[in-house]
């Protein structure tokens, strides 16, 4: 038999396959696999508007109404995913994939500048919302949480606001009295011998530092010129104070997360905690109810608000629905619902009228007097005050 050239040595004989044929099969296989892959990628990344996928809302849990009454008529479904109250992970998540995963986000307003600079949120003209003019003036104008400092653009819609202070277990701290006693009107309770080893502060420094700043500054224990605008020296002063307190065994634990906060107080692991007011609401609805009081600190509050922002994904794929959702947060049902279940104040007064007209609407009942009182109270919380003024009469 004639000897085949070296290059054709392995040419098919019977069921044999030459290298060339093998490579041909591999090539065809690769093309088919690539085609399937591209098709699958295109299918999985198709515009959400085509499939009417739920709006993805990533936010602080206390802004979650847990129901969506009235929104579904035009806004479609919403999936609310709880975000951490920790600035850097939020920035990192948004930079990494959050901008393409969520339509809207709501986080503490201090993040609007870096989020906007990163391209994680966009200017979606929130001033065009029908209820924009109803937003309380202090939230609507010169509000740094919705205004980009460098450009002056408005990039968010304020949805909830409050002033944070301290939750106290009255029956354990002042047994037999049923009422908050000595020391119950100052952040100093967190650092008092009454609560040594039974005090707790939030692990996220961003909330805790302002309370400590108010305490040290307003009581002239340390030099802190403006607790609302802390300098590096102020932060070092606060840090040193906190480290000394920690070393002295003042704190039992640093809490993180809504459930942990409620659990620590409900189980009497700690007796005083710098925390969010909804925690006190949750304690009062325990069985049996816990005599918990939210402090009205004489040093004043650090008022905050949480805005809703739109992501690039929201702007490009679901803008109308995001606008509808934003508008819905400014209307009566959302306001009545949030104030009822969280105690938080929403951005417009519509909730008061809504509760009056619809006391038994979905997610209720809604107590008009209570909602009215919360609006009066929270709006009345002083911002930059000296000790000894009307602060003592404010609070929850």
């Amino acid at each position, binding site marked *: 038999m004639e000897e085949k050239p070296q290059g054709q040595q*392995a040419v098919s*004989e*019977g*069921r*044999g*396959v030459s290298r060339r044929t*093998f490579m041909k099969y591999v090539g065809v296989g690769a093309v088919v696999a690539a085609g399937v892959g591209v098709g699958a990628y295109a299918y999985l990344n198709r515009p959400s508007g085509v499939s009417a996928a739920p709006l993805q809302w990533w936010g602080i849990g206390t802004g979650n109404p847990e129901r969506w009454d009235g929104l579904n008529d035009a806004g479609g479904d919403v999936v609310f995913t709880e975000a951490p109250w*920790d600035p*850097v*992970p939020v*920035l990192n998540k948004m930079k990494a994939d959050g901008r393409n995963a969520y339509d809207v986000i709501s986080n503490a307003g201090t993040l609007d500048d*870096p989020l906007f600079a990163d391209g994680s949120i966009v200017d979606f003209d929130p001033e065009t919302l029908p209820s924009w003019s109803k937003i309380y003036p202090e939230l609507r104008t010169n509000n740094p949480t919705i205004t980009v400092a460098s450009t002056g653009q408005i990039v968010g819609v304020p949805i909830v606001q409050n002033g944070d202070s301290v939750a106290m277990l009255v029956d354990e701290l002042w047994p037999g009295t049923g009422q908050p006693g000595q020391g119950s009107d100052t952040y100093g309770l967190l650092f008092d011998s009454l609560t040594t*080893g039974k005090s*707790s502060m939030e692990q996220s420094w961003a909330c805790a530092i302002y309370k400590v700043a108010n305490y040290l500054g307003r009581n002239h224990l340390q030099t802190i010129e403006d607790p609302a605008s802390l300098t590096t020296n102020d932060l070092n002063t606060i840090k040193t104070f906190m480290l000394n307190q*920690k070393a002295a*065994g003042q*704190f*039992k*634990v*640093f809490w993180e997360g809504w459930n942990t906060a409620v659990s620590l107080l409900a*189980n*009497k*692991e700690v007796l005083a905690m710098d925390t969010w007011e909804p925690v006190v609401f949750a304690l009062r609805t325990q069985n049996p109810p816990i005599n918990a009081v939210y402090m009205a600190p004489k040093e004043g509050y650090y008022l905050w608000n949480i805005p809703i922002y739109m992501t690039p994904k929201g702007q490009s794929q679901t803008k109308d629905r995001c606008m509808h959702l934003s508008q819905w947060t400014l209307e009566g049902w959302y306001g009545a619902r949030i104030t009822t279940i969280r105690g938080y104040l929403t951005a417009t007064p519509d909730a008061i009228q809504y509760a009056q007209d619809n006391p038994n609407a979905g997610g209720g009942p809604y107590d008009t007097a209570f909602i009215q009182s919360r609006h009066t109270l929270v709006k009345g919380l002083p911002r930059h005050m000296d000790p000894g003024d009307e602060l003592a009469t404010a609070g929850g």
Partner: protein
Amino acid sequence: MASRRPSGPFDQLAEYFADHPRALLSLQIVPPLVFVFFFVFVPLASIFAWSFWTVENNRLVPGFSTSAYEEFLGIGGLPTWRLDIFLKTLRIAVTQTAIALVLGFAIAYFVGIKMRGSKYALPLLLLFAVPFLTSYLLRTLSWYIVLQSRGLINTVLQSIGATNGPLPGLLFSEFSVHVGLLSTYLPFMIFPIWLAMSRIDQTVLAASADLGGRPRDTLFRVVVPLALPGILIGSIFVFVGVLGDSVVPEILGGATDSSRTLIANLIDKAISGQQYPMAAAIASIILLMAIGLIWGWERAFGLKKIGEI
């Protein structure tokens, strides 16, 4: 007999590799080497490199700065709190390894030697694997429920009149951290020791007894030396595991004795604060220490023994 002519591609491939054994060896070794290089070596080397970079405008910038190491070690009058946490973590890891060794050895000895041949030995051993069927987070949180002021232990103690109130330091303390770590890492000690003990020939134990060895002599002069590979590998598992654990201290640790912050939590916090070079520096130091540890064990005992179990 005349050799059969290759009839298919696999036959031809086999023939080719029979003629080129080095090509076959390369085909076997290169893929895993490439995998290890890209998925193990490159990430670790990257971490080491990042420890010398800097952060500008929230982003890592290539460069060469030893400031992360200087801050960590407290060089030049800088505070040493990070180093203190590292040393504290080492202390807790050593203590945890010792506790796990004492308990793990006893359990493995009981199951592997005393219950040898019993039909209950394996089910009993598997009981220690049951916790692994649940979420690590839930497993740790369950200790929260047991140890808290109104938890199981305090409730029982108070109901039988043993205590008047909640025991202090049961939760949010170094004690609760050790309890949580023990429940997590004890099986990592038990199973290697049990495996090593299960390889001890029964006749060796019988010979020890026949030669007049008391049970204690058999334990310390026969069982322990033969179980040493299992003890070593179990200790490595527990020690390294504790060094890298951030969940248990986060949930069960307290503020009073700072048990809430171990070295892995420090890495988490550094990342949260965008101190990426610091996080990388700490990780590199732990990595170098772990390599040094394994090297030391190799010099002292020889890692080949691990293969024997």
